[in-house]
């Protein structure tokens, strides 16, 4: 059996495997503090690229507790994007993240195009970053529209950001729309280097004891295996609609489920909630993915990409 190669290329970045992390589901700095620096070595780091938790211009404390609820084969979260803000991120976090043995993708979110511009400009200037992921699951304070729900907003945002960074821009699509492929097409038209999906699905749970919503924020987003069939379908229709690469995620728990996203058309996959169940989930998925290819007698992941996209 020939050892299958997982090496791949994504938006110009050579990756040792297609397995990266979902933003906000693995804190490399905390992992280094908890497990020791060895956790961030090139032998041990679980992902082939690292996507930071979403940062905003101003610091955010995040949402009041409770922030998580365990759902059938998944979880709901309403973390509220706690982050140190642009300045501290550049000062305190970037120097550490830059040292990671893999390319760094910084996830950013803002209330309007100017905010996004200042974020990408500031982070680009600081250096050591390979790409941005734009978290557009938020309203544009001027139009009032959720950026990720409007093709026009997405395209307009991308147009604007072009003059503030030369780095590739990835649009993180929200699954809470009727036709994500239309938003993806707008992203491609606006010059996005790639799209990633899915983000979490709007969800809520009630406190069994009181008559209040369980989550401090009232509602949150569903992730985990429960949403995988929805994510697979969205990745299929988005991959069929655009020619830029697709980063697929949503309930990946092992090599077979990762392979399903690739067969559905994804060029890379992201592991999210499974990181909470297994701090080395990324490594496990990568290893199983190689085995799955070997079982199929396939030598490179590319051979299977999109095999079942339509």
């Amino acid at each position, binding site marked *: 059996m020939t050892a299958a190669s997982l090496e791949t290329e994504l938006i110009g970045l050579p990756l040792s495997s297609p397995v990266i992390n979902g933003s*906000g*589901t*693995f*804190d490399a700095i*905390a*992992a280094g*503090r*908890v*497990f*020791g*620096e*060895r*956790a961030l070595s090139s032998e*041990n780091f679980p992902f082939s690229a690292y996507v930071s*938790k979403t940062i905003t211009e101003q610091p955010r*404390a*995040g*949402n*009041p*507790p*409770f*922030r*998580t*609820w*365990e*759902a*059938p*084969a*998944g*979880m709901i*979260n309403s*973390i509220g994007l*706690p982050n140190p803000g642009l300045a501290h991120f550049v000062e305190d976090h970037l120097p550490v993240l830059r040292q990671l043995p893999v390319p760094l993708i910084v996830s950013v979110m803002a209330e309007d195009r100017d905010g996004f511009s200042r974020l990408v400009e500031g982070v680009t200037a600081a250096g050591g970053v390979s790409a941005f992921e734009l978290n557009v699951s938020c309203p544009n304070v001027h139009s009032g529209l959720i950026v990720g729900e409007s093709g026009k907003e997405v395209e307009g945002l991308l147009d604007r950001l072009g003059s503030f960074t030369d780095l590739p821009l990835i649009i993180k699509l929200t699954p809470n729309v009727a036709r994500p492929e239309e938003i993806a097409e707008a992203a491609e038209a606006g010059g996005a280097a790639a799209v990633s999906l899915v983000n979490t699905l709007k969800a809520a749970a009630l*406190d069994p*004891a*009181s008559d*209040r919503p*369980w989550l*401090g924020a009232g509602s949150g987003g569903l992730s*985990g*295996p*429960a949403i995988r069939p929805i994510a697979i379908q969205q990745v299929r229709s988005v991959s069929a609609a655009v020619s830029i690469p697709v980063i697929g995620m949503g309930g990946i728990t092992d090599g077979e489920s990762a392979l399903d996203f690739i067969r559905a058309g994804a060029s890379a996959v992201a592991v999210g*909630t499974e*990181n*909470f*169940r*297994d*701090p*080395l989930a990324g*490594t496990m998925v990568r290893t199983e993915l190689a085995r799955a290819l070997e079982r199929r007698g396939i030598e490179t992941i590319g051979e299977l990409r999109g095999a079942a996209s339509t």
Partner: protein
Amino acid sequence: MLPDRPEPPLGRRLLSVVEARDEGAFRLLTLLDDEGPEPLPGQFYMVTRAPDWGGGLGRPYLPRALSFAGTTGMANGVSIEFLLDEVGPGTRELSRLSPEDECWVAGPFGRPFSRAGELTEGAAGAVLVGGGIGIAPLAPLRRDLIARGVPTRVLLGFREPAAAGGVDRLFGCEEVRVAYEAGSDSPARVTDLLSVVLAGDDAGRSAVYSCGPPGMLEAVRRMCADRGVTAELALESPMACGYGACFGCAVPRRDGGYLRLCIDGPVVRGDEIESAEAGEAGS
């Protein structure tokens, strides 16, 4: 690495059950850890039944956070004791395990209890205040304090005798006072015992350590604050990951913002937080 914390093995590991038995109202589960370090009192592990949870309708799904209630050094590793209170599907499945079964375990994680001396300048002694399943992390703490020759009093509280468990096995009987809110001829709360102890003159020089239901912890926190006694509390919050990845275990800080309880806690000083009840559903 975080200062003064043993380094957990990378990722999660498969550990086998070496003993499982009832201890009063609780279940005592012992795993043999042939990879991990000796944990420090107050630390916890994230535990999942292996090969995986058995929630027919999809729960349990996430690992469950468990404080260790004791350890014994063995030739082939450390045996770790957990005290389980069956409150839902996860603790139910863990309570059903028997020898030969296996668990996925990550950890030890979290901030341990401080040494009495560090907590209270020239501490004269320690007072441990536990309620319900909250007695678990206090057991290894007591052994540690006694080993260091710190005079230690243990006050434990339970709803009723039928709800108690693990006291003899984990604490031995000497020096331990137990209060029952009901079902005994002298109903009392553990905080009643604490107020008596704190009335003693050396109170100011004792270090208080507590773990239990939020209501009890908050009462302990205030009582100590009022009397200028420093207290460390082992808190709970829903934990999805246990190692700082999810930001789900937020507990409001006194000075604004939130702690990530899995790495900034679970042990916190009473004056670090707003309330031990914050984060209670609907609060």
